[in-house]
């Protein structure tokens, strides 16, 4: 079973994603901000991380920087899922080592497709 970590501070958004990925046979982990996410990845090495940018305490950009420094996580894919949809925001996310950048509001189907595509590579 593939492991997926959903990092977002909006419980209602998380709930939809959690339901969808569980249904698609993922083991789902949830973090409410970057710090929690970093704590979880240390022990659980997820295959996929869905990461929001704007979060209290540690934001998404800082989180991915930490993740990309960790050799144990070099196979982990990261998708940004953010309401920040400016060109510059997307470029920054990709430059920091994300595998994809999806904007909010999103289509759940597209998110699932993107996840699947990245994992099959």
């Amino acid at each position, binding site marked *: 079973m593939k492991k997926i970590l959903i990092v977002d*501070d*909006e419980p*209602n*958004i998380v*709930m*939809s*994603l959690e*339901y*969808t990925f569980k*249904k698609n046979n993922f083991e789902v982990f949830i973090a409410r901000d970057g710090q929690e996410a970093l704590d979880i990845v240390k022990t659980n090495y997820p295959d996929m991380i869905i990461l929001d*940018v*704007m*979060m*209290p*305490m540690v*934001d*998404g*950009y800082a989180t991915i920087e930490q993740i990309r420094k960790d050799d144990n996580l070099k196979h982990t894919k990261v998708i940004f899922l953010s*309401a*920040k949809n*400016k060109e510059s925001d997307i470029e920054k996310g990709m430059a920091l080592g994300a595998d994809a950048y999806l904007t*909010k*509001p*999103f*289509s*759940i*189907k597209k998110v699932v497709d993107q996840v699947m595509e990245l994992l099959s590579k």
Partner: protein
Amino acid sequence: MNSIALLIILSGYLAVLFYIAHWAEKKGNSKWTNNPYVYTLSLAVYCTAWTYYGSIGVAADSGLSYLPIYLGPIIIAPSWILILRKIIRISRVNKISSIADFISLRYGNSRFLGAIVTVICLTGIIPYISLQLKAISETFHVVTNTPTSKNIFDDTTTLVAVALALFASYYGTRYVDASEKRKGIVTAVAMESVLKLVFFVIIGVYVTFFVFDGFDDIYQKASLLEHFKEKNTIGGLPQAINWFLLCVLSMFAIFLLPRQFQVSVIENNRENHINTAVWLFPLYLLLFNIFVYPIAWGGNILFDGKNVNSDTYSLLIPQFFDEKTLTVMVFLGGFSAAISMIIVSSIGLSTMITNNILIPYNLLGKLKSEDSVSSKSILNSRKIGIFSLIILSYFIYRFFGLDYNLVSIGLVAFVIISQLAPAFFGALFWRRGSRLGAVYSILVGFAICIYTLLIPYAIGITNSSSNFISEGYMGFQLLKPFQLFGLDYLQPVPHALFWSLLFNSVTYFAVSVSFKGNYRERNYAEMFVDINKYITNHEDAFIWKGTAYRNDIEKVLIRFLGEERTKRAMNIFNVKYNVDKNIELADARLIKFAENLLTGHIGTASARILISSVVKEEKITLPEVLKILEESKENIIINKKLTETSNELKEITAKLQNANASLIIKDKQKDEFLDTVTHELRTPITAIRAASEILHDDDEIPEDLKKQFLQNIISESDRLNRLIDKILDLEKFETGKQTINPSKNNLVETVEKSIEPLQQLIRNKKITIHIESKDKINAYYDEDRIVQVVTNLLSNAIKFCPDSEGLITIQIIEKDNFIHTFVHDNGKGINPNDFEAIFDKFYQSTNQNIKKPVGSGLGLAICKQIIDHHKGKILAQPSIKGACIVFTLPKNKNIEL
């Protein structure tokens, strides 16, 4: 002490001075050399060997009469703020380099007047320099216990004189432009002023407290000496008049002595330095005089009945007790005092000789011919001038002996220099003062000085058996030099001062009033007297008519300034007066500008001669000048107005730029606000969309989850709606569309009213809520709005309270016409760095637009708007545990809302 050893110490000391001068010269305008303290200390060049040794001599021999020489400057010092400032300004804009230049320029670039002033200064100051050398030489022999050698080339002090002459001529002539500042010399002089004071105070303390047992002890013992009483009283009205005249004399001296003019005017870097000098210089003199009396009378007690020179008490006393170090120290102090005077005076005098005699009278070669006088020859003549002045003074001392004590020759110099006073002060304040008046007044005054002081003194020195002093010229009793016209109760110096100044002033006024000056004098009179009006554009005030070509003038300038400096100066001129550089003809302003540039190099009179040799000047009548002056005054007023207008324009431009900058910032903030708002709006839409998609696509979803998703959609829709309300609220407040309607309310009730709808939430989270206040606190406010504020603060507090044992405290207190309401929770608190930012609707953007704020962002911004509209304040406060927000409301209705 061994001569060689003392010579080595002296050389070491001179080397240090060389080094300081060199260092200061290199430092240029650093804060170490260009400050009011160095300026004030350099003024202390006033205190020569005369002060250092002579005052003690006078105090020992005749008691109080040493004081007026210091009282005069102390009394006149406050006037520097006005008078000295004026002199400095005039000298600065006209590039004046000596007092001779100053007087000669004011009276129409008068060559003759400049020469007279120079001669007066030379007559007064050369013996004075001799005296300093005598002091050095004699004290040298006292310290080394050697007799003065008959052969001048054998005497060690000759070496000292030569070394001094070399030092002064090297450092005094660094620049051809004599109006340039000599940082090196000034700093060295300031340094010496410190040393002489410190050494003098040290010997004073030594005599008072180590040799004797304090001031009282000296007084006790001294009062037993003969003549103590009569030496220490002023001595009735005649003596008081003597005193008064000596005070007046020293008041003039502090302005007119060439060395004082040099350090206080020519070397002045900033006018504001005067402000410090005004109090610090008198203080310096005061400190110097504290120990004169104890040393003098201590010496009288110790050497009572022995035949010693009281001038040298300060050396003899430590020598008497075999204190070698102390003796050398005192000697060095006196040496400092003497050489400061020698160096500064010789620099001033040599500039005067060159610029006011040699160059204008073509003694260095024909001024007008191209290849005679040059910068190099000027510098050389100044160097030779300084060197030979010092050496000449030394010879005078050696061959004429100068048997008078230090003070009397110094005072003679003062009286001679004072002859410049009417012409000098008249130049500052009286427009009618004329060249003829100045010339005759100085000549008449000087003649009287010669008769009443110089001749009798010369007779004294040569010891001729003339009965000129006792009988008067040709036996006329009324012409006795010390009792002229029967005035018999003044001492020789005040006596000479009285008569010479009286005739001098009367002549100045009478001649000036009877014979009008020419237009040039009148023109400069205007510029001198009204310098403050002309300070920025003084070239405008210069009147001149005729034809002149820029080319010719430039050629003259290049000869003395060099190609590059001339070019730079012309550029400055073009820019300053907005003159097209291709215009061939020169105007009055350029003539004056060029004369100024040359003045620093060759003096005012020569500058005028030189410029007039290449231009064709037309005569102007006096009435014409007065008319033009009137017009130019108006012009200056118009100019001033124009400057003011242009300043206003500049201000407006600056304001516009500021406004523009703040608009740009506002624009940026607006963008960021929009970013934030769209983000805030997108979040609930995202949640709604995701939940709807699942409900739409997924038929197998369990019933309870389905309910949950639907519930989410409802609550997110509500959130969306609230957000829109908030945005509109904020918009209304910011654009001023929102008004508040205050009425008298009880704030405690309002708070309770706000809690009511939140009760369910509070119970769910098991939070305890406390209100600490009186039952009733009335104030004027818009209740609906304040409910909104309290609700918002409470919602935040509830949100951040811990899951168990949450506690919210609301405290309402009255303080200083305001009611303070504190809302305190026990959650995780607010980062103090964010105390201000949380009330900012752009909070997220200031936080790099990434970190999400606590709360939705807009709530506190609205609270702030509401409270601001009530003229209250809302802020976050430091708190030991949890967050604490306080808002204030004015208690009184009369604070207009």
